[in-house]
């Protein structure tokens, strides 16, 4: 256990340093924990209040028709909303503004004088359409200010159906894992699953980039603050230093990711709350929620990927002298995280051309996302193969990182961006 002697002491120091760093505490934990719930809260409040306002608002109908059909329409509207009626008004700019102001409303409906006549003509000639006019005020104050327009759309749609009920309707079914599930609209199911398919890659993307930033910062900070030299002369195995750095980062990044996921979940739920009634589906009963074993595989996949990303961040940050350079140099690895995450958000890997498929499978950071999709449909083999591949990659990167720490290169290695002509002759040996 000499290999890990001093690990606990070092890990404690790492955690204290990381958690007390205001940049990390604010950027990684507090901001995501507050930002997403606040955003979600604002969204659901805006939608809800606009809906309530639209439902409670008076619907002003200016009836210039006076026929039977306009009376029927007003009676129908009155059934679902609070309706006020003004008869026989010529609507010009001033009159409309006056009416909106008098009734303290943002929209009104006009039934034109030929409405009943056209409705009657429609019975014999389907191409004749009767119109009502909708006037809505635009102030640009809120994204949802014209939700009233949708309310009227809905009421008119219902009136149409009431007057001429549809004779053909679609009864939708979905085939899930080879079984036909009746009454489930695949479109709604896809929409629901899609919101989750986005959440996972985004979470993984954020977790990997955040933790790589922390790991790189933590190594570069030791160099910038000139504490690394002291650390390397302490009676502690250098593998313990590497493990302490990685573990400290994983713990802090884990808390950060949890904070992010909690916030993001709340944010996403504020959208699904706005789905039309009757579209809520129980994904668990449809078998579309991973099993415990699936979750375990996903956890392992995520852990080994995280470890390899961190070890890689430690390696590259050892080649620079300060925090800013470390954070920039880690940025060169980001495309390997972003590209598969974004690609797999929109694409099904199984339908891609072979070359692209190989490319995505070759990038280790694709695998937790591939695994997250595979375990939902019960394809555990794909997840397991991915874990084996990423573990092998992780072992190679960890080995390189531990070699780097065991030699003097951790102190002397410098990346030469301009011309690699003169390479430092450093002894190949390492300390025992």
């Amino acid at each position, binding site marked *: 256990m000499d290999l890990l002697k001093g690990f606990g002491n070092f890990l404690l120091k790492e955690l204290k340093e990381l958690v007390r760093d205001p940049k990390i505490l604010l950027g990684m934990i507090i901001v995501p924990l507050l930002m997403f719930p606040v955003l979600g809260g604002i969204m659901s409040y805006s939608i809800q209040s606009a809906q309530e306002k639209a439902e409670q608002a008076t619907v002003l109908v200016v009836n210039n028709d006076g026929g039977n059909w306009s009376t029927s329409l007003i009676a129908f509207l009155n059934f679902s909303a609070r309706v006020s009626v003004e008869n026989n008004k010529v609507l010009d700019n001033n009159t409309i503004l006056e009416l909106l102001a008098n009734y303290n409303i943002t929209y009104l409906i006009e039934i034109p004088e030929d409405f009943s006549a056209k409705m009657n003509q429609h019975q014999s000639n389907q191409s004749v359409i009767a119109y009502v006019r909708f006037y809505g005020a635009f102030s640009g104050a809120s994204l949802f200010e014209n939700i009233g327009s949708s309310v009227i759309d809905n009421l008119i749609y219902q009136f149409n159906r009431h007057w001429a009920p549809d004779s053909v309707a679609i009864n939708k079914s979905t085939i899930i894992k080879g079984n036909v599930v009746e009454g489930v609209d695949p479109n709604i199911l896809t929409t629901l699953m899609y919101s989750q398919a986005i959440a996972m890659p985004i979470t993984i993307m954020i977790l990997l980039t955040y933790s790589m930033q922390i790991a790189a910062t933590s190594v570069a900070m030791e160099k910038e603050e000139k504490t690394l030299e002291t650390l390397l002369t302490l*009676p502690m195995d250098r593998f313990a230093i590497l493990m302490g750095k990685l573990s400290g980062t994983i713990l802090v990044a884990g808390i950060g990711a949890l904070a992010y996921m909690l916030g993001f979940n709340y944010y996403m739920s504020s959208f699904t709350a706005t789905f039309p009634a009757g579209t809520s589906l129980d994904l668990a009963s449809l078998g579309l929620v991973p099993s415990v074993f699936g979750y375990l595989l996903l956890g392992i996949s995520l852990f080994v990927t995280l470890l390899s990303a961190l070890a890689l961040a430690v390696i590259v940050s050892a080649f620079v002298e300060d925090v800013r350079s470390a954070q920039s140099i880690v940025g060169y690895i980001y495309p390997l995280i972003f590209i598969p995450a974004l690609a797999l958000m929109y694409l099904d890997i199984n339908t891609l051309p072979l070359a692209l498929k190989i490319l995505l499978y070759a990038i280790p950071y694709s695998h937790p996302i591939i695994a997250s999709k595979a375990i939902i449909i019960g394809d555990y083999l794909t997840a397991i193969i991915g874990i084996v591949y990423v573990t092998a990659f992780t072992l190679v990167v960890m080995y390189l990182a531990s070699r780097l720490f065991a030699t003097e290169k951790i102190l*002397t290695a410098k990346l030469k961006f301009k011309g690699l002509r003169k390479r430092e002759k450093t*002894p190949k040996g390492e300390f025992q």
Partner: protein
Amino acid sequence: MSLAVEAVDVVKIFGEIRAVDGLSFNVKNGETFGLIGPNGAGKTTALRIAATLLLSTSGVMKIFGLNVVQEAAEVRKIITYLPEEAGAYRNLSGWEYLEFMAKFNTRSKDEAQQMVNEAAEITGLGERLKDKTKTYSKGMKRRLLVARALMNKPKLAILDEPTSGLDVLHAYHVREIIKRYVKEHNVTVLLSSHNMLEVEHVCDRVALINKGKVVAEGKPSELKEKFGSANLEEVFAKVIGLA
């Protein structure tokens, strides 16, 4: 008397630069030995090799008979190293920093606490030890780090420019810490400095280094007498042919 440090023909090459070029010197147990010379003479490289941070290109360095490469882990148990311009962890208090460092030297909580108490006294920082080190001045930080390097009574303390960049008062305080502690606890010290006047007051023996080589070695008083100089600065100038 056994040798605390034995350097034999040590060479260190960076690219095309021979930072250390056949350096040989011995440090006896219990003495304070100074490597002195101008900036770029190879002092820091030599100390980093002794502290198991750098591998020499050729030659041998031993600390109390232990090879600094083959027995690096053993060497690290008996030395402490204070790098030039070293920092402390910004978000730890001075007290926490000392506790963190003490725990590497002992598993006993009491012993660690004793070390920290002693170091706290050496620093003379009092209540300020409870503050985070990022609030310390350069002098305060250096006092903390020197105390850290001495608190576990190492067999060999390697101090690189211990008073570099400090004002007169802080430099005086640090020098006094070193002199007092070495005498009280029989710690061997290998230090480097480009301030030759200062070294005269602290070191029992010195080696003058120029371009990676030892150009003169001995007690400061002997060297001054030998070269008929008033101080080590003059000795150095004469040795390298400047005076």
